[in-house]
């Protein structure tokens, strides 16, 4: 059964450096295509580093992404993190609610192992 998490996309050092090095190069692509999951949630769901999961966004968008455990206590359980990039953009809706800004952090996503 898919489980609902809150996804926080954001800046990372490697993502920022990858922009300058080249968006089609390995560092940037690896960073924006790796989902960080709290270690406790990974254990509970039987997930291991490198597993592939399917995320379904609030508007029904579906993406697949590799996972890695978040460092130490960086993420509370129930929260996911991914560097800004193609995957996080695919999970944003087109509606900006009159602000010009799509909801780009704190999005509900459903996660299931592929």
């Amino acid at each position, binding site marked *: 059964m898919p489980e609902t998490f*809150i996804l*926080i996309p*954001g*800046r*990372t*050092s490697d993502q*920022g*450096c*990858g*922009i*300058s*090095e*080249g*968006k*089609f190069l390995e560092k940037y692509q690896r960073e924006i295509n790796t989902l960080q999951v709290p270690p406790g949630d990974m254990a509970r769901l039987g997930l291991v580093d490198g597993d592939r999961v399917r995320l379904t966004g609030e508007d029904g*968008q579906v993406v697949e992404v590799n996972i890695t455990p978040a460092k*130490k*206590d*960086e*993420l*509370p359980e129930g*929260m996911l*993190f991914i560097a*800004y*990039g*193609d995957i996080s*953009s*695919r999970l*944003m*809706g*087109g*509606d*900006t*609610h*009159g*602000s*010009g*800004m*799509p*909801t*780009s*952090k*704190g999005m509900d996503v459903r996660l299931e192992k592929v």
Partner: protein
Amino acid sequence: MAATTESTATPPGELKIVQDATCTFCGCVCDDIDLTVQDNHITEAKRACVLGKAWFLNHSIEDRPSCLVDGKPATLEAGYDRAAQILTTGKYPIIYGLSDSPCEAQRVAVSIVDWINGTIDTTTSVCHGPSGMAFQGVGEVTCSLGEVANRGDLIMFWGSNPAESHPRHFTKYSLMPKGMFLPNGRKDRTCVIVDVRRTKSAKAADIFVQIKPRADFEGLWTLRALAKGIDLDPKVVLRDTGVELAVWTDLMARMKAAKFGVIFFGMGVTMTRGKHANSEALLALTRDMNAYTRFVAKPNRGHGNVTGADNVVAWRTGYPFGVNHSRGYPRFNPGEYTTSDTLANGEADCGMTIACDPMANFSQPARQHLSSIPYIALDTKETPTTRAAAVAFTVATYGINTGGTVYRMDDVPIPLRPAFDSPHPSDFEVLTQIERRVKKIVGITS
């Protein structure tokens, strides 16, 4: 525009040192970088952070054509002609980006959009656009980063992770400097970080407040209530913010006791549900605090000249972003004239992107529409946006190959000191050539 065309050539193999160069990767715009340059390549960037080193050391001469039309190499002249034709043929032309271009180029972009009755927007709309709306509603109690360095004794970061987004923020401006009224530097300051994640920045905090996701508005209004001395129900506060009332009460006591408090805020505030309402709450809290002590708020701006884009678009049109000229005069309406909306709603029918990458950063509906319309893209490197463009210009890198002016995140203008020449044209040159052709097509003779 002599600054953007000044030659910086050195003989082959010879080392050159450029002192006090300006880094334009992020809004800190550090202007104390010493560059070592050899054969059109920067080999060292002294004092630059990890993002700055990546910026300087990876912007050499791109081995790509300066112009591609429909994906095929073309002359610049052919590219300028096609670009002007695209922009003057559509009924709803948009121009978007500008946050990694110097002010001189931004100024030309605004002129073009005026000639074609188009809509201009900057990456501000998907960064601190909600804060821009909040500034209009609440006002901005602010200061320069120099004042923060010399006076700020309570430094708060709310929804911002400068350790990864602005790595020299702590050392150059906000935490470590020994200032005029803070002779002991870090020891004289208290650092508070409020975030939903225990980010890498949290290590720098004296007090870390981990709030519930999507509870920024509630947390800020809790502080506003406490500032006014209003009694709150501890259970409700914990339920709504994820943080004990005692923690908020302690924080408010420290805020009132500070001599000069600063709240730096980031995308955690503006990109989360609530958006401009979150920013308004933060700015209103800052304003409230001035009944007790000196308190300021500053958005931590991302791109090197996104603050310049706000300034240039504002002094050209009266509004900072999301400006429509279809009636012949500027109108501002975030949510309607902002690029996420004009694309996702399928309204724009042609466009030009300048120093930005919406094909990587926008929602899927917006990206799908952009890929279906003819547009021009200017960028220093190949990106998903340049790949799908009808006309793609490879441009020189501002601050490395070209001069000009950028605005630091605190609205302080900083000059650029280029390191070496590029065979590619600058944003300013490309936009000037396109403007010349656009004016001719629409019948402007002056």
